[in-house]
């Protein structure tokens, strides 16, 4: 019953996301194959992971778990149901009260179970003019712990204009989700150099498809 409700809700969510955004996936750097990956994307809207999740073909979607903030998603029974049963998300505590490194441990557990991850290395929603905020170190820790898993940059274009922070009615613009060329941590690569390279790869993914 619960599973049926989750499947129905998942269908409705993807349908709504497609209707509002007429979204299109561009597999520019990697093919849509169900291999284990860490998708990392720019973060401007609450709908970001929903859109990426919608754009993944079913086989890839079943394998992927978005990473989301526990504070918001555990706030009500409906949200709890949606985030756990529909999206099967990895919930992380952003309040600072959890022990240091707990979030990485939870993500590594998901990876070790063979799942892919969808995460937003900026850590918070970008509401400014700059295309990207500086990356948090979490992505580096994951790459250092599991260097064999490819990291796929995902650029979400336009969703922030569909529904900017604080608005309630969406403007039905066309969104594009671009999957860029995968990267991996080089042997001996420093944290800051790696994070800069990952951010540059995400920016390049955008420029290849959406112009400067």
């Amino acid at each position: 019953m619960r599973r049926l409700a989750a499947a129905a809700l998942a269908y409705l969510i993807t349908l709504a996301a497609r209707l509002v955004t007429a979204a299109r996936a561009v597999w520019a750097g990697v093919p849509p194959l169900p291999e284990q990956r860490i998708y990392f994307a720019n973060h401007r809207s609450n709908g970001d992971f929903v859109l990426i999740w919608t754009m993944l073909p079913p086989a890839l979607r079943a394998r992927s778990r978005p990473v989301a903030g526990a504070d918001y998603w555990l706030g009500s029974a409906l949200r709890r149901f949606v985030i756990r049963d529909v999206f099967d998300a990895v919930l992380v505590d952003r309040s600072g009260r959890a022990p240091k490194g707990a979030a990485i441990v939870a993500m590594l557990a998901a990876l070790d179970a063979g799942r892919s991850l969808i995460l937003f290395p900026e850590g918070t929603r970008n509401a400014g003019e700059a295309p990207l905020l500086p990356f948090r170190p979490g992505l580096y820790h994951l790459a250092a712990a599991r260097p064999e898993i490819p990291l796929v940059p995902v650029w979400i274009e336009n969703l922030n204009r569909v529904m900017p922070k604080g608005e309630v009615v969406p403007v039905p613009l066309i969104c594009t989700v671009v999957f860029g060329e995968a990267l991996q941590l080089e042997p001996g690569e420093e944290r800051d150099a790696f994070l800069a390279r990952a951010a540059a790869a995400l920016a390049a993914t955008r420029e290849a498809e959406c112009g400067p």
Partner: protein
Amino acid sequence: MTGWDRHLLLLSLGTLVLLVLFTAVGQVLRARLGEGPMVANFNTRVKAWWGMAALLALAFMAGRSGVVLLFAACSFAALREFVTLTRFRRADHWAMVTAFFVVFPLHYYLVWIDWYGLYAIFIPVYGFLFLPIIAVLRSDTSDFLARIAETQWALMLCVFCLSHVPALLYLRIPGYEGGNVLLIAFLVVVVQFSDVMQYVWGKLLGRRRIAPGLSPSKTVEGFLGGVATATLAGAGLWWMTPFTVLQAGGLALVITLMGFLGGLVMSAIKRDRGVKDWGHLIPGHGGFIDRLDSVIFAAPIFFHLVRYWWSTA
């Protein structure tokens, strides 16, 4: 079955024959030349033509409301493609919400209830004045003129101009009662035939580019050949219109010229925004605006000419 129904049936059969022919040509090309990009594109285009013809036929069968609904759907798709390419900012959010969820449906409602006096000025005057007012309330002045101009252009092209196609249904032409749907068929057939023939003549004979800065694929030969063929075809369709052969040819000439020039204007906008196609929803053709750009520019002029010289109201 009235005389007009028979005409419509005849036209549908003609379209069907053409589509079958093109499909056959596509299959022969594939068998002869293999699945190259050019052949594949031709075949996806033909497939999309089948879909478009079927939708139009379905709308014609459903009558006035069906046709208004179909073009409202086209307007919505076109509007979202256009707005996606504009530089609108957070401050325009409510102006955009108003454009999509108030102005657009209200305009089509006015067309549907045939209130010409109001829908003829609703977007050109009321949209023109009130959308900038909504935008200015957020007091973000950067690119302000460009932003409000883009909003107005989006609504004028994608909603106002395009809605003149279904508006043709409401013209009262003495002796042509019940035949208006054929005016839409005439307009759409001439415009689309002109687009196809410009492409065909351009591929066959095209040498000199007509507007190299705007569109690398448009040639003088394609333009002349396309306009001449589509004008002749329009004249040949006089039997389903209230026009004489000469009048039908003259109107077809105006339609094809407006369509061509409209295509140039829309190419210039695409160039400016740095894209090749307006969208991706019609396989092989690009977006809705890529297919509708000529209709958008031809429809209001055709509507006004017919309204002024043939209609009683």
